[in-house]
């Protein structure tokens, strides 16, 4: 009975979400800001979920997400900048002849390959990051807790420094960054408009991660999080499973990085500095370490309040001739920080803790509220 009700609720809410997306895609021009905020949120949601897989489910405190995102972003960007824009982008140092040759090859390839190519580029970026993760993992996954965090943080900085180094000028355009990156492509021959592409890609990726977590391998990850020594005594090969989690997490971080490149249309090494990792860590912690739905929810809340809801505080405000003090550019970040502190104080373990979203819990909470209201009213009379 309840199972049936929950399925109906899930399908209904999915339909509502798709409806909203459809409406937004119809009114894209008017709702530009809203569209771009939810696109950014969904991209960050994927990075947050990938980080949660590592930090929340496998218990590996890694801070290398930004590094892997930059691998994905740069690879995708380099592969996707159209031939005609190459000289404009690499105006200082010129472009590596191999890249140009490859681009001409793609530009002359059949149309079906060209329409599919953006996704292939995303995949190449992600696979490259997975490869780097596999190699780095051999060295750093022997480390525990804080030491692992420091090592991965350092690795992320090395990747960023490499991307902006002069030696890489003809490939990554060094410190000038890359621009004129094509935006999101449509999917399935235009069935899904470009605007909705990131949602479909991210939904598929998060579904993959959730399936992984619920599989036997996911349970092994959780065992490692709970107690490494016991997990090893139960026949779980620690290195193999840690490496697996690290590689999968990096793969999806890089894929999100590629999406971010398409979203921003221009990237530079500075975009992927440590503060990006911290932004994502913030999302993970607010959402609840060990909760996928928490990460997704928190990605939307954090991004929206940073970029949208709190804009109000950035403009000078005058009430009846009296100018309210403090209301000026940058004030919203203070409000944002205060809100964060409040959230962390109220929800010690993040909004969702380590639970996943489920209808019974949500409806149960509403029912509780109603009951409380009723009883308090009864008390008044």
């Amino acid at each position: 009975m309840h199972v049936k009700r929950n399925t109906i609720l899930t399908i209904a809410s999915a339909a509502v979400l798709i409806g909203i997306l459809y409406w937004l895609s119809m009114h894209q021009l008017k709702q530009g800001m809203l569209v771009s905020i939810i696109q950014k949120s969904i991209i960050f949601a994927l990075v947050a979920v990938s980080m949660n897989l590592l930090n929340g489910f496998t218990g590996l405190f890694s801070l290398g997400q930004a590094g892997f995102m930059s691998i994905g972003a740069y690879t995708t960007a380099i592969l996707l900048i159209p031939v005609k824009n190459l000289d404009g982008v690499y105006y200082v140092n010129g472009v590596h002849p191999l890249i140009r040759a490859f681009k001409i090859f793609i530009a002359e390839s059949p149309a079906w390959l060209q329409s599919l190519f953006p996704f292939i580029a995303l995949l190449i970026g992600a696979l490259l990051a997975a490869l780097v993760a596999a190699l780095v993992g051999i060295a750093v996954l022997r480390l525990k807790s804080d030491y692992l965090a420091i090592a991965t943080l350092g690795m992320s900085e090395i990747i960023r420094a490499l991307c902006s180094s002069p030696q890489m000028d003809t490939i990554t355009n060094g410190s000038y960054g890359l621009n004129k990156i094509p935006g999101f492509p449509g999917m399935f021959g235009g069935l899904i408009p470009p605007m909705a592409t990131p949602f479909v890609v991210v939904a598929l990726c998060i579904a993959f991660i959730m399936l992984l977590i619920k599989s036997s391998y996911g349970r092994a990850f959780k065992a490692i999080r709970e107690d490494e020594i016991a997990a090893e005594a139960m026949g779980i090969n620690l290195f193999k499973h840690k490496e697996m989690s690290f590689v999968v997490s990096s793969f999806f971080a890089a894929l999100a990085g590629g999406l971010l490149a398409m979203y921003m249309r221009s990237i530079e090494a500075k975009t992927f500095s440590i503060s990006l990792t911290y932004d994502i860590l913030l999302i993970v912690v607010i959402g609840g370490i060990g909760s996928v739905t928490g990460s997704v929810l928190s990605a939307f809340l954090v991004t929206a309040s940073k970029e949208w809801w709190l804009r109000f505080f950035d403009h000078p405000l005058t009430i009846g001739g009296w100018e309210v003090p403090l209301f000026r550019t940058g004030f919203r970040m203070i409000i944002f920080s205060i809100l964060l502190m409040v959230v962390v104080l109220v929800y010690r373990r993040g909004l969702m803790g380590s639970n996943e979203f489920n209808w019974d819990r949500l409806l149960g909470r509403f029912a509780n509220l109603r009951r409380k209201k009723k009883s308090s009213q009864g008390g008044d009379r």
Partner: protein
Amino acid sequence: MSTILLKTEHLTMQFGGVVAVDDLNIEIPTGSIIALIGPNGAGKTTAFNVITGGYQPSNGSVFFDGQTIGENSPRTKMKRIYNGSDKTVFTHRVVNTPDRITRLGMARTFQNIRLFKDLTVFENVLIAKHCHIKAGMLSAVFRFNHTEEQAMRHEAEALLKTVGLFDYRDDKASSLPYGKQRRLEIARALATHPKLLLLDEPAAGMNPKETEELALFIQEIKHSFGLTIFLIEHHMNLVMDISDSIYVLDYGKTIAVGDPKEIQKNPAVIRAYLGVEE
């Protein structure tokens, strides 16, 4: 004729200058219950850790179920400071990680319970089934191994029923009462399909009634799973009741070997446990 399932030869474990286990020679015949006793700090748990691959021995070898699973001789710095009483030179070096040894059929429990606390009772047992999984990660994600997964779940459920924990299957492991946690840890070890089960103080902190139940439980699982059992224990009643043979350690050295009756009368053992009047 019973075969030897586990055998250690001149097993020595030295930490820095301290010889924690010195020249330990154990033979465990298939189907028996063997106990390892001794005062606190005698090196019993260290011996367990060496056998299960947690430590690499300083000297000696471990032989299990037809193959050598660990062998080492003093090298580099250890060669200089080696202080064990046995000087037999082993030429090979065999290293196996604990997870591999578990997959070979040797499971253990811990002195201070190490359950996966935040996971359910059912998940605890199910995780132990993971070590024999055949499907790769991708096929597990896309549920191509559906039959295997179902089989794992059924086996885990059956196991929980056997050990009488089925009613607690959805409870958090940490919420179980102490005795049940001990039982769950044994169930979890059983889920890896062991031939040899190593129990590190299974009755620690139990009252006499619980200890009696545990003795029955150990004998029960020994028969129904065809196990060989090697246990460390301080409750002498339990040890004397169920073990076929007892090894006594003191300060790392084996001071006595024999069946329960012999051990009870052995003067060296009495001296080690009670001290001797000067």
